[in-house]
C-alpha cells in the first residue's frame, strides 16, 4: 500500500523488538467474537491511483457544472470567481496538512492568516470583532441565537420569515431541545416586513434574527429594528448569505447589528455541492467573551516579538467541560486562509468590482424582463424572485433554459417548502456575462 511505509520485514522486526509474534497479538484485548476476517467487508476492491482518478473523473462528468454554463443559482451558495492563487495557497502542505494551531511557535503561518482573516471580516461586515470561523451559515445563525441567550439571559428568539429557510430550520432545530420560545414571523411579500418583526418582540426576547440582504435579495433599512431592539433590550442579529454585498451596500455593523453571521463562501471558495463552505461570526466588542468558536489573538513571545495564539480558550469545552457553552471544537481553518488570500488579492477595489458586476447583472436582467414575468419589487443586491403566470410556465422556461446550458434559478419551493410553485429564485454574480442574460431572456419566450 503506497500510503504505508512498512514492509513486512519492518513489521516483523518491530514485533520482534517487542517480543510479540504477530500483528494480531496486538489485538488480544479485543474479544475474538468482535474481530472480523481480513477482506470480509463489503467495500469496493482496492483501486490504483489511476483507478481513483478514473472513478472520480467519470462521476464528475455525470454532473453538469458551472464552468461551462450560464449560472443563476444562489439561495446561499454562489458561483463567484475563484482566483488560481487562492487554490494554490491552500493546496500548500504547510497550510493544508497543518493541525489546529495549538502549538503557536510552529503555527504562526496559520495564526497570522487567521488574524488577518478576522480583521478583514470585521471590516467588511462593519463589526468590531470576528471569530476564526464556524462550519457554515446555518449553524452560525443557530449559534448566534444561543449566544444572544447567554448575553441577555433571556430565552425567546424571534426569527424573521425572510431569513434563508435553511438557517431558520437549523436554528429552530437547535433551539427545540432547550428551554425558551422560538417564534418565526410570517412574511407576506418576497422581502422583509420589519413592522411585523418588531411587533413580535417582547420583554422576554433575547434576540431578533433578520437577514440582510434577505433570502429574496431584498435590501432594506434596519434602523427601525435597531431602535426596537434597544427598547426591548434584546440583541439584533443580522444574517447574510453573500458577503460580497458589503463592498457595495452599508454593512450589518453600520446598520447596528450586535451579532452578524453568515456565509463567506463567496470569498474564493467553490460551491462544491454545498461544502466545505465558511461560516462567519462577528459581534460587538462588548460581547466578545460570549462568542462561540475559535479566536486568534495578538500577543508577544519571550523575546518580545509579535506573534499570534488561539485565545479565550476557557470558553472551549475541553477546559470547562460540563460548563461549556458551545460544543464547537473545530473551525473551517483552511477556508479562512482561502478567504484571507481572496480578500488580499481583491482589496476594496476588487471587492467593489465584484459587487458592482453582480448587482449590475441583476439590474440588466430585471430591466429587460418581458411582461409575462415579474420580479419582486424594492432594492435588491444580486438576487430576486421571478414570478411566472403559473407553475407550468415556469417549468417550461426552466426546461428551455436547460437546453441552452443555462441554470436559470432555483424553484423557490425547493428551498422554502411553504412557497407556491410559480416562483424562481434568481441570483447573479460577476461570472454572469451579457450573453448569458440574453440567453436567459430568449428562453423566457416559452413562459408566456
Amino acid at each position: 500500500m503506497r500510503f504505508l511505509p512498512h514492509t513486512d520485514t519492518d513489521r516483523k522486526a518491530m514485533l520482534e523488538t517487542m517480543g510479540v509474534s504477530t500483528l494480531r497479538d496486538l489485538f488480544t484485548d479485543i474479544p475474538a467474537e468482535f474481530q472480523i476476517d481480513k477482506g470480509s467487508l463489503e467495500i469496493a476492491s482496492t483501486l490504483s491511483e489511476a483507478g481513483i482518478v478514473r472513478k472520480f473523473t467519470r462521476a464528475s462528468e455525470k454532473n453538469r457544472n458551472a464552468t461551462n454554463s450560464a449560472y443563476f443559482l444562489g439561495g446561499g451558495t454562489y458561483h463567484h470567481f475563484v482566483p488560481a492563487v487562492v487554490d494554490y495557497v491552500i493546496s500548500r502542505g504547510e497550510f493544508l496538512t497543518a493541525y489546529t494551531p495549538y502549538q503557536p511557535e510552529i503555527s504562526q503561518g496559520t495564526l497570522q492568516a487567521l488574524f488577518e482573516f478576522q480583521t478583514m471580516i470585521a471590516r467588511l461586515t462593519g463589526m468590531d470583532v470576528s471569530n476564526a470561523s464556524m462550519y457554515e451559515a446555518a449553524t452560525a445563525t443557530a449559534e448566534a441565537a444561543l449566544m444572544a441567550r447567554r448575553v441577555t439571559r433571556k430565552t425567546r428568539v424571534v426569527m424573521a420569515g425572510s431569513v434563508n429557510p435553511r438557517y431558520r430550520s437549523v436554528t429552530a432545530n437547535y433551539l427545540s431541545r432547550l428551554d425558551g420560545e422560538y417564534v418565526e414571523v410570517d412574511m407576506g411579500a418576497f422581502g422583509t416586513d420589519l413592522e411585523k418583526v418588531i411587533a413580535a418582540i417582547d420583554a422576554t426576547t433575547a434576540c431578533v434574527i433578520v437577514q440582510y440582504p434577505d433570502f429574496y435579495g431584498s435590501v432594506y433599512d434596519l434602523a427601525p429594528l435597531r431602535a426596537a431592539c434597544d427598547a426591548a433590550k434584546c440583541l439584533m442579529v443580522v444574517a447574510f448569505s453573500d458577503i460580497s454585498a458589503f463592498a457595495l451596500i452599508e454593512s450589518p455593523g453600520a446598520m447596528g447589528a450586535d451579532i452578524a453571521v453568515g456565509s463567506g463562501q463567496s470569498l474564493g471558495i467553490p460551491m462544491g455541492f454545498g461544502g466545505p463552505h465558511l461560516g462567519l461570526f462577528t459581534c460587538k466588542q462588548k460581547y466578545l467573551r460570549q462568542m462561540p468558536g475559535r479566536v486568534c489573538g495578538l500577543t508577544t513571545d519571550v523575546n518580545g516579538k509579535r506573534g499570534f495564539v488561539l485565545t479565550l480558550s476557557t470558553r472551549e469545552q475541553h477546559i470547562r467541560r460540563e460548563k461549556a457553552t458551545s460544543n464547537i471544537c473545530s473551525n473551517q481553518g483552511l477556508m479562512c486562509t482561502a478567504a484571507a488570500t481572496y480578500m488580499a488579492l481583491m482589496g476594496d477595489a476588487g471587492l467593489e468590482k465584484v459587487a458592482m458586476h453582480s448587482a449590475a447583472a441583476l439590474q440588466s436582467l430585471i430591466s429587460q424582463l418581458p411582461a409575462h414575468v415579474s420580479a419582486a419589487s424594492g432594492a435588491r443586491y444580486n438576487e430576486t424572485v421571478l414570478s411566472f403566470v403559473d407553475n407550468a410556465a415556469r417549468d417550461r422556461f426552466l426546461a428551455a433554459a436547460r437546453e441552452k446550458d443555462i441554470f436559470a434559478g432555483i424553484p423557490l419551493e425547493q428551498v422554502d417548502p411553504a412557497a407556491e410553485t410559480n416562483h424562481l429564485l434568481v441570483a447573479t454574480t460577476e461570472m454572469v456575462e451579457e450573453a448569458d442574460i440574453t440567453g436567459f431572456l430568449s428562453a423566457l419566450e416559452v413562459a408566456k
Partner: protein
Amino acid sequence: HEEPLLFEHAHEAPESLNLPGVVGPISDALKSFARKKPANIPGLSEPETVRHFVRMSQWNHGIETGFYPLGSCTMKYNPRVNEQVVRLPGLAHIHPDQPEDTTQGVLELLYETQQWLGDISGLPHVTLQPAAGAHGELVGLMMIRACLDARGETNRRKVLVPDSAHGTNPASAALCGMQTVELKSGADGRIDLDELKAHLDGDTAALMMTNPNTAGAFESDIKEICQLVHDAGGMVYGDGANLNALVGVARPGDMGIDCLHINVHKTFSTPHGGGGPGGGPVAVNETLAPYLPVPRIEKHEDRYALVHSDDNSIGPVLGSAGQIGVLLRANAYISAFGREHLHQIAEDAVLNANYVLHRLKDRYHVPFAGLCKHECLLTDEYQNSHGVKTLDIAKRLIDLGFHPMTVYFPLIVHGAMLIEPTETESRETLDAFCDAMLEIADACEAGDTDMLHEAPVKPFRRRLDETKAARSPVLVWQEQ
C-alpha cells in the same frame, strides 16, 4: 524571514484584479444603500499576495514537513490524488440546488461513502451531514433523544460520560438539552463496571464512550458495558475519534454500540487544514435509523436523490448535505485501500503505537500497563523530580524537529503525554522520535534542563504569552 501583516504593507492598493461580468448601472433603489466608508481591505498585487502567504506558510509545521504524534488527533498523511480529484470541475463547481439529474455523479459517490462507513462501523445507516466530530456527537444525541421521546421516555435526559472523555462529549449533551453525569475511571483507566452500574437508572438516556478510550486502551468489557446500558433502557453512543485502531479489524456496531460518529479528518485522512474543515458522519443501527437528519442521500432504483423531509427525522442540522469535498476525499482514501487492505490501517497504527510505547516505557512513566491500541499514554512523573514538566518536553520536541504530542489530556492522569503515530509513519521516523524522547529523558537525568525550559529556540517564534492574549484580547488589527 519576517513578513508584515497585510495591513502593514507600505503602499496603497494597486489597480484591482481584472474581472469578468456585466458592466452597467445598478438600480437607484440599491444606490440609496451605498456603503459610506470603504471597508479598508488592503489590496495587494498578485505577486505580493502569493509571496505574503507563501512566506507565512513556511512558519508552519504540517504533516508534509514532519511527524505529528498527536494523540487522539490521528494526523496521518493526506494523499495528493485526493486533492486532485475533488478539484474536478464536475465536483467543485456544482451547486447543491442544481436539478438532481445534473448531480447524479456526486450523489453516487456520497451514497457509496455512506454505505462504506456503515459497513466499516457495523452500523448500516449513515448521515454525512455533521460538519465535525463534535457536531456528530450532537446529532447522535439528538437521534437518541428523539428515539427515547418516541417511546414516551421523555424523562431520560441523563448522559453518562467517563472522566477520560473528550471535552466535547458533555458540551454536546448540554446543547442537546441533556445533563451529564461523569463516571470515574477505574484504576486501569477503563470504565469501571460498578461505577457504571451505580449511575444507570430510569433517567439514563445514554452512555457516551470512546473505544479505544483516550488512554489508548481498548474497553475490553465493551460487551457487558453495552448490555448493562441497554438493560437499563439507555443507548450507547460511541465517540469515533479513535476508530483508527479498529478500522477493518472490528466493528463498533457488532459490539453493541448504537450510534457512532466518525471523524473523517482522522480515520479517513482528510486534511486538517489548520483547524478544519472536518467531517463527522454518524452511523446508527436500525433502531435509530428513522431519526436520521435530512437531507438524506438515497438510492431509488438507479437514481440517487436528496430527500429533504421525513416525519421522523430530527430535521436538518446543517445548511447543506455536509462537507462534501471532505467526504469525497474520505471516499478516495477508502478506495485506495479497498476491502483487501483496509485492516492494514488499524494494524500498522496499533503496531506503531505499541512500538513507541515499548521503546519509551522504561524511561517515561506509563500510567496504565498493557497493550495500547493506536496511541500510547505516558506521563512526566519521572521527569518531574528534575523540575521538568510535560510542557517542557513538548516544547523541546519542537527544537528537535517534531510536533509535540497531545499534552495534559486525558485529564485522568497528571502530566499526560498522549502519542499517536498513525499508520503512515515509517519505523525510521518512529525511531528518530523515540531517540529524541530518550535524549530528553537523558538530559533530565543529567540535570541538563535549561534547554528544556527555554525551548523552543529554533522556530520562527519562541514561547508566546497566552495570558496576555487572553487578558486583553486583540482580535483585529487597528492601524496605529
